[in-house]
């Protein structure tokens, strides 16, 4: 039992998918504050001039990427069971976002080192050898220009890839990639798509005939065990 004066940390695991992949991290953060307030969860506010409900997210999800494994930490002032929190959040989540788990965390979010992504590519230009070609380009040094906030930097993608397997499934290419993600070393999975465009020559025509999806499957620790 938690005494009334105690502030309890709570971790929420949720998924965000479908058209909500286009909602940016900043927009999600604001949305989540409002969800928690309207859920009647007595969240701990930040101190200072403009107090805000304090929410800490694990590795921000890039725009255009779906996820089955988002984590956020909050603190609550008034005790409430995890089941009750889960029930209230579920009632207040928009469609295309689902609560997966609510618990008192035993680990820190910064333990996350890798993220397992599943990339699915649909294109009429996929050939029998395409999957193998993709495996090949990512097994060697692969330099690509990374743009962020006006800066351009040449990076070697290989240094960020823990493992990458590409296969053909129902005319589609499915790539399973574990890449460095976290506060120390981080790669946006869109750069894998960029590398494929440049080196394989697919996904270069219209977004109507060729398209792809990226799904976060799992967040992983240093030893590749699942983060909890």
């Amino acid at each position: 039992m938690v005494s009334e004066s105690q502030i309890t940390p709570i971790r929420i695991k949720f998924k965000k998918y479908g058209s909500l992949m286009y909602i940016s991290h900043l927009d999600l953060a604001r949305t989540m504050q409002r969800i928690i307030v309207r859920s009647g969860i007595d969240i701990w506010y930040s101190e200072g001039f403009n107090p805000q409900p304090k929410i800490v997210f694990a590795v921000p999800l890039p725009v255009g990427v779906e996820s089955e494994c988002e984590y956020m930490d909050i603190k609550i002032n008034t005790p409430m069971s995890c089941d009750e929190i889960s029930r209230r959040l579920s009632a207040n989540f928009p469609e295309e976002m689902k609560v997966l788990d609510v618990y008192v965390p035993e680990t820190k979010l910064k333990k996350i080192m890798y993220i397992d992504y599943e990339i699915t590519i649909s294109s009429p230009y996929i050939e029998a050898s395409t999957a193998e070609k993709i495996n090949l380009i990512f097994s060697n040094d692969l330099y690509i220009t990374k743009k962020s906030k006006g800066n351009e930097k040449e990076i070697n993608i290989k240094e960020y890839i823990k493992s990458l397997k590409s296969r053909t499934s129902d005319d589609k290419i499915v790539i399973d990639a574990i890449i460095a993600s976290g506060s120390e070393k981080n790669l946006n999975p869109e750069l894998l798509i960029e590398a494929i465009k440049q080196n394989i020559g697919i996904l270069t025509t219209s977004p109507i005939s060729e398209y792809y999806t990226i799904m976060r499957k799992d967040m992983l620790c240093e030893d590749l065990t699942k983060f909890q």
Partner: protein
Amino acid sequence: MYKNLSSILKSVSKPGRYTGGEYGQIIKDKKDINCRIAFCFPDLYEIGMSNLGVRLLYGALNQENDIWCERVYAPWTDMEEKMRQYDIPLWAHESKDSVKDFDIVAFSLQYELCYTTAINMIDLAKLPIYAADRTDDMPVLLAGGPCAYNPEPVADFFDVFSIGEGEEALVEFSRLYIKMKKNGTYNKKDFLREVSHLKGFYVPSLYDVEYNEDGTIKSFEPKYGDVPKKVEKRIIADLNTSYFPTKPIMPFIEVVHDRIMLETFRGCIRGCRFCQAGMVFRPVREKNAQTLNRQAKEIYENTGYTEISLTSLSISDYSCLHEATDLLLEWTNPKKINLSLPSLRADSFTKELMDKVSSIRQSGLTFAPEAVTQRLRDAINKNLYEEDLLNAVRLAFEGGKSQVKLYFMNGLPTETYEDIEGIAVLAKHVVDEYYKVPIRPKKPVSVTVSVSCFVPKPHTPFQWEGQDDLQLLRDKQIFLAEKITDKKIRYNWHEAKVSRLEAVFSKGNRKLSKAIAYAQKNGMRFDAWDEYFDYDKWMQVFAKCSIDPDFYANRKMSYDEILPWDVIDIGVSKNFLISENKKAYKSKTTPNCKEKCSGCGANKLGGDITWCPKAR
């Protein structure tokens, strides 16, 4: 279609504008629905989602079980390019279904410069833009909102206009549609004829307009005896019992007004002579403090917003303001909810009020004296004195504020250069007032002077006036810029070319339709956006369509001229407007509705009218 749409969104700016799926959006089962309405806002999602009127009508229509109202916004130009490239017709947010397959397509026309965007949306929906070209199997196009008080410039595009407050009217309109569809009597022509018998609906195709040689209107008559000569606007009688949405849609992306917007009352007791809202929303009808507090709580619980804005045309005139803020602060303070009161009048600004609104967070203060010299302020009937303003800013400074914004207008009827110079003098007085306060914030004062250009508006005492010509408006702006020398005063002025175009459309007649159609065809849209506003291109459009903009914007009309908007009856009589216009030239004020009834005529519309003793 949706799969394709989704992959296209990767290549446009702010894709969150187009996704839908927000908490609070209303999804219905199509098999239960007899009438589908696409409610279009001819501007970006961020603007449209902030509009209280749209929220109200969306909610009110969806209260009906067999009606499903969805939202539609204008795609930004990058998205439009993709839609045209990949042949994607305009769709509705909730169902993603194509707008052209709806029963009713309704447009909210909030400002004149949205006209090309609105017409472009009709085109993007793959519907013919002219009402006469649309067949019985296509949706009925309706328009409403403030611009519908002079519907003539866009009369050729829409089948029908909803005049006045639409919460009840649009439901009646949809019911008539459903009835005629069900009993098999529906065709557009017969339906529109029936609609013209409903109160508050104007069907432009049922009127003949003839012109004199000088371009003024010779006659404006209904084609048939059963069609009303004048269309009286609709009002909601009692705001305490009428519908108000307490579960608004929660946008994911930041929108302009991302907070609880709580309507306190409709109408305005003041009667400033340039102000259209002050005339067309008469008579004043208030919500009581209890209703307001109840609605605020409900919205808070349904949204999680941490800011409440009490909206009205002039919040200080709300008779329950103190009672309402006391009730609200009781629970909003402990919950760290910020309360804001926009549209404060300087003469009712008190320390008590300021302490209330700043109890959580600081915000700057804005006052709108509009004019400086007492003579001009009397001419426009802005009953406010310089001491009131200086008192208000002193209170604000004593309370720890160091930023004040002041709104003025250039080009008002009877204005002289002395009036303009007075703006600079007054701003300096405000600066001086700051340094007279012994205990003031430890930073320099910042006074922002924002000056807009007068645009003569239909249904106001100044509706007959011509706007200053462009050169004169600019000369006046430059004159003032030279008079403001204090570095603590920031001077912003409104682009005179924009105001001129607004004046053309505000006072426009049916002949303008062809210019709007031509402009849209030539790629003009988002005229209200700096990046797309192109005055020279508009002048070319007018020249091409033989439209003389001076005729609309600058010509002073006579009292007996038939005005394009005379067909609309806002409740306020023409005689009242004429008498107000005459008083302006004598700098004579008219008391506000609280002090005395001046017989404007709006009380004939009925309603629970708080400040209209004659109506009781």
